[in-house]
């Protein structure tokens, strides 16, 4: 190795180093913009109540510690813990059923030909296009007739029946991005289509399935309007209802407690996202399935 190549290598490494520093600077600068809201909410949860709307500062002028305790206690009838548990009771079955049903249906659409496939696919997408405001009442009437009001069934049963077109469409697009050779060879090896789905397709779609569960978790967790309409009993309230249950212009609103509970309410979503993303790292390419 002569001096010239060594020098060139050094230059290259230095350039690489500078690029890395620049990249990190950029990522951090941008990251601050993304994290700022969370920091603000955390800061607000420690502020005295009358300070929250008065200043845009992140840091409280005087640290108040009881907002978490008092916010957790809420009105005294049920604690915020009840709402957290309720949200899990609602969200977990919804996620599991959504994954199973959406993957199956997407597999059907992406890998098989059958009569009326195109119109059915069209209808599936079209169900996303009508504003919720006008389907809300007839849907309520329907679920009321089934006797499901004041339970989580209006959320869970539709998930079982692949009612979330968003996820079906998403899985279809992912499946169509996957080569078919593996499945075909599995078929030749004597697997039936269900075995192929479970043994070949699902592992290949892991990143998509993980994304699906993250989205479904966060969206169902944050959903306010549907639980509001369907849940009557306070002991069945979800987190989103619990957060808004004391917001009214004619009473003193303890914003610092609401901010404190907002932080608590966000934690599960943050943790789940943080844990789930390792599955993005081991995508198809790195697992070496495609050989």
């Amino acid at each position: 190795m002569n001096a010239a190549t060594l020098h060139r290598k050094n230059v290259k490494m230095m350039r690489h180093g500078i690029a890395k520093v620049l990249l990190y600077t950029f990522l951090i600068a941008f990251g601050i913009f993304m994290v700022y809201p969370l920091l603000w909410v955390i800061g607000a949860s420690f502020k005295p109540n009358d300070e929250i709307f008065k200043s845009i500062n992140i840091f409280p002028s005087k640290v108040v510690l009881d907002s978490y305790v008092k916010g957790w206690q809420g009105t005294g009838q049920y604690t915020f813990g009840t709402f957290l548990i309720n949200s899990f009771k609602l969200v977990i079955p919804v996620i599991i059923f959504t994954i199973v049903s959406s993957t199956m249906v997407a597999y059907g659409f992406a890998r098989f030909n059958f009569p009326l496939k195109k119109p059915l696919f069209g209808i599936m997408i079209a169900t996303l296009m009508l504003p919720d405001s006008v389907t809300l009442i007839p849907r309520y009437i329907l679920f009321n007739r089934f006797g499901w009001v004041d339970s989580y069934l209006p959320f869970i049963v539709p998930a079982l029946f692949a009612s979330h077109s968003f996820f079906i469409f998403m899985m279809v697009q992912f499946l169509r991005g996957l080569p078919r050779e593996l499945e075909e060879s599995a078929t030749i090896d004597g697997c039936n289509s269900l075995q192929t789905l479970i043994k070949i397709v699902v592992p290949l779609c892991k990143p998509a399935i993980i994304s699906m569960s993250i989205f479904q978790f966060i969206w169902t967790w944050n959903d306010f309007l549907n639980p509001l309409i369907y849940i009557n009993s306070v002991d069945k309230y979800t987190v989103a209802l619990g957060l808004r249950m004391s917001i009214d212009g004619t009473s003193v609103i303890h914003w610092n407690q609401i901010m404190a509970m907002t932080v608590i309410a966000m934690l599960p979503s943050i943790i789940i996202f943080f844990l789930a993303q390792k599955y993005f790292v081991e995508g198809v390419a790195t697992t070496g399935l495609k050989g």
Partner: protein
Amino acid sequence: MKYYRSKNYIGLLYISPWIAGFLLFKLYPFVMSFIYSFTEFSILDKPVFTGLDNYIYMFTKDKLFFPALKATLAYVLMTVPMKISFALFVAMLLNMKLRSINIFRTAYYLPSIFGGSVAVSVLWRFLFMKEGIVNKFLGFFGIKSIDWLGNPDVALFTVSLLAVWQFGSSMVIFLAGLKQIPNELYEAAIVDGASRMRKFFSITLPMISPVMFFNLVMQTINAFQEFTGPYVITGGGPMNATYVYSILVYDNAFRYFRMGYSSALSWVLFLLIMVFTALLFKSSSYWTYYEDGGK
């Protein structure tokens, strides 16, 4: 031939949960809202059939219909391209093999975890008010402060920034799509001495075009129906600059109790979204690439 036929039924079997779900849960609300659109219906009273009155009223008399339509189209055209290009850009950044990239990914996803929570609306107002953080920041560079939410020409843009800022789900989908691209393709390109740009346009873009298409369709459908952002931040103002279509639909349904008219408005929006989506689907055959042969 026989093999193909038997496949027919299997495909239907796989999608049967959706068909059942559609017939059980979706069809009735859909049909009912369509019927309502030809009636005068206050929710609380019995609907009265009025023929095409609602539709005629919409186009001839409703002073808010065309402004709302215009605001919504502007919102869609602003939000969708910004959000998707931003999401793709960030997804490519976060796809790099860097140390502690996990933390960055989580950080960048945080805005989307907020959803439409109470905190977001408070915060967005603090960011963009006259003496807010954004104006203070711009002040460092000598830029005069802007009424981000008070100027009717700017407000819609500010509201659409909120949607762009919550780019997380599109980003995650892109990220999952990027992870599916086989490394060999890039390795082969490096052997060929392809430039970064070339790799992006000839490998990355075609390989993620299916998820790109998905993001485009879904973001368009969602943007047309955007409600929470404008509703909680500006309430449709100033001077109806952010009075998007969904607020018009909501106001008629639950503020004025004109569910019949609101349904008619919704079906017009439905048709509009349908046309846009159909165009996207039509165009997709020119620019999406499917590994499965595009059947």
